[in-house]
């Protein structure tokens, strides 16, 4: 399913999208499909499935630790695409990874693997629009969305340039810093959401860990909320994981449904 179709479908139902991130292979390769099922059962609309990289500079300690666990469990791009191909899900899947894994596999091969395994879009946090030419061409040929990020420090000029390149949705980084749970939603978040003027769906991430924060983000004008570290924390705890993932998803999804 294409991301645009999913966002349209939700818009027609007057719902905000809930995008749930987990790292594939964390804590082990066999658990991932059950984890994804729990997120979808709880109401996740789009799954962002991390392909772990050894040096995840845009991520905080929570997701770095998840990446390390997944790598120790033997996760690699071959197994990732195999795992994705075997997932029996009806929601769009987005691959989040770092550029070197794509560069090393070869852009064309990587994007074709995305298509054949059922990945709808790519988020590459260390690939700014300026460096994306080759990957963007290949993605557009193969029909894979390439999603770019904007941040509170991104100038209006750059926002315009990024909006001309992003497809599927635009990923708005809610605040300065790396991924990880935080306790507040700042004025900077509302500011950046309002500065991104576009018909392309706006999904907001970094630091959203509960329903209350998600509600504020939705109020500020987001078409989607992205939650990652809060789910990863539950996985890391090893305690009643699937039930708690489903509950948290349900809780956050509840505020995404407007009357």
């Amino acid at each position, binding site marked *: 399913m294409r991301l645009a179709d999913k966002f349209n479908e939700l818009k027609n139902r007057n719902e905000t999208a809930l995008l749930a991130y987990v790292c594939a292979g964390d804590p082990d390769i066999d658990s991932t499909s059950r984890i994804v099922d729990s997120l979808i059962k709880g109401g996740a609309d789009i799954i962002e499935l991390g392909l772990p990289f050894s040096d995840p*500079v845009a991520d905080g300690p929570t997701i770095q630790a998840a990446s390390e666990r997944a790598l120790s469990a033997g996760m*690699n791009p071959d197994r990732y695409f195999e795992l994705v191909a075997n997932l029996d899900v009806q929601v769009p899947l987005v691959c989040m990874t770092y550029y070197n*894994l794509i*560069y090393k596999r070869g852009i064309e091969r990587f994007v074709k693997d995305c298509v054949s395994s059922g990945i709808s879009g790519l988020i590459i946090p*260390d690939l700014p629009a300026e460096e994306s030419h080759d990957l963007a061409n290949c993605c557009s040929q193969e029909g894979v969305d390439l999603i770019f990020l904007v941040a509170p420090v*991104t100038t209006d000029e750059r926002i315009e340039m990024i909006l001309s390149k992003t497809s599927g949705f635009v990923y708005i980084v809610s605040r300065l810093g790396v991924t990880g749970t935080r306790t507040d939603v700042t004025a900077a978040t509302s500011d950046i959401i309002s500065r991104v003027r576009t018909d392309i769906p706006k999904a907001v991430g970094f630091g959203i860990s509960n329903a209350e924060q998600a509600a504020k983000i939705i109020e500020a004008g987001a078409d989607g909320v992205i939650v990652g570290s809060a789910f990863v924390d539950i996985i890391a705890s090893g305690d009643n994981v699937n039930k708690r993932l489903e509950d948290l998803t349900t809780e956050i999804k509840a505020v995404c449904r407007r009357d």
Partner: protein
Amino acid sequence: MSDTKYGKYGGQFVPEILMPALEELEQGYEKYRNDPQFLEELNYYLKDFAGRETPLYHARNLSKKYGTKIYLKREDLVHGGAHKLNNTIGQALLAKYMGKTRLVAETGAGQHGTATAMAGTNLGFETHVYMGAKDTERQRMNVYRMEIMGTEVHPVESGSRTLKDAINEALRDWVSNVENTHYLIGSVVGPHPYPMMVRDFQSVIGNEVKQQIMEKEGRYPDSIVACTGGGSNAMGIFYPFIEEDVKLIAVEAGGKGMKYTKDAALHSASLSVGEDGVLQGACTRILQDEYGQILESSSISAGLDYSGVGPELAHLADIGRIIPRVVNDDMALEAFHELSRVEGIIPALESSHAIAHVMEAAESGELGELVVINLSGRGDKDLETVIGLERRG
């Protein structure tokens, strides 16, 4: 924006959050790099604070023993004991001109962290240094030195607990505090404009050598030899000679041999045997596995223990302008003792790799009759490491 690449290498592979900061830095650097007041102030600090110019010393005993005329560029005599201050003074001054109040830096051996602490303290910055926990253990004196100067040292426990991880943490700090903070990268690595800027600040080494060797010998050397981890001392001494007929040899750390385990290399020779990839902001040659996961590197010297290398060096190696060579831990250790015994100069273990290569290659004649070695640092910081190794046998 100016060209960010060296051939196919370089670029700006960073999170969007950093792109405006890189643009600001690039503009700041373009604005001040030729500004007379900035340059006057920089020269003042290089002379009276750092102790430049450093001597180009004719190592008579070593020359005699190895049958070729050898000069040592004495960067070990720079304040702090290594070439690192050339760059930190330059960047800290630039950050001050740009209105930043806080510095963050990564460090491997602690030399760059120490040099950042010196420059940061002197110029009135709040200074934070990230250092792999493995390195804080093996370089305790440098940690103390930084702390005594009021710098906060953050040991990094993630990943391999070395330089690569310290860079990741420093990047994360910068991403979180980008508005008032300058990230003071210590080598010719990372996203544009760092490789260019660090090269320019370190080029004072090569520019001095050019003048000094003309005064002493009336000609340029046949070869220049420098150790290479990220490559800042190598680019600093090579760059002014790029257009000249001088052999430029970059000596990498061969560690315990050119071998690998599942997720680590037993060496740090990314220029010699690395493959193209993207690491920490730049496309360059890196040590990686078949999937593109970065391999941990290894070396007796913390300052060379890095999985990547400066993108401009990767390009210069590609086009054959520089020659990469490899020296292993044992050879470096032998050179460490050799220079100490023969010349009464204790070299850093990093610089010992360059010396070891000259000891090995001088006889064959491939270095020519006039050789300059960049003695990038002094070895006092390494005594504990060396004694520890030798006690273990």
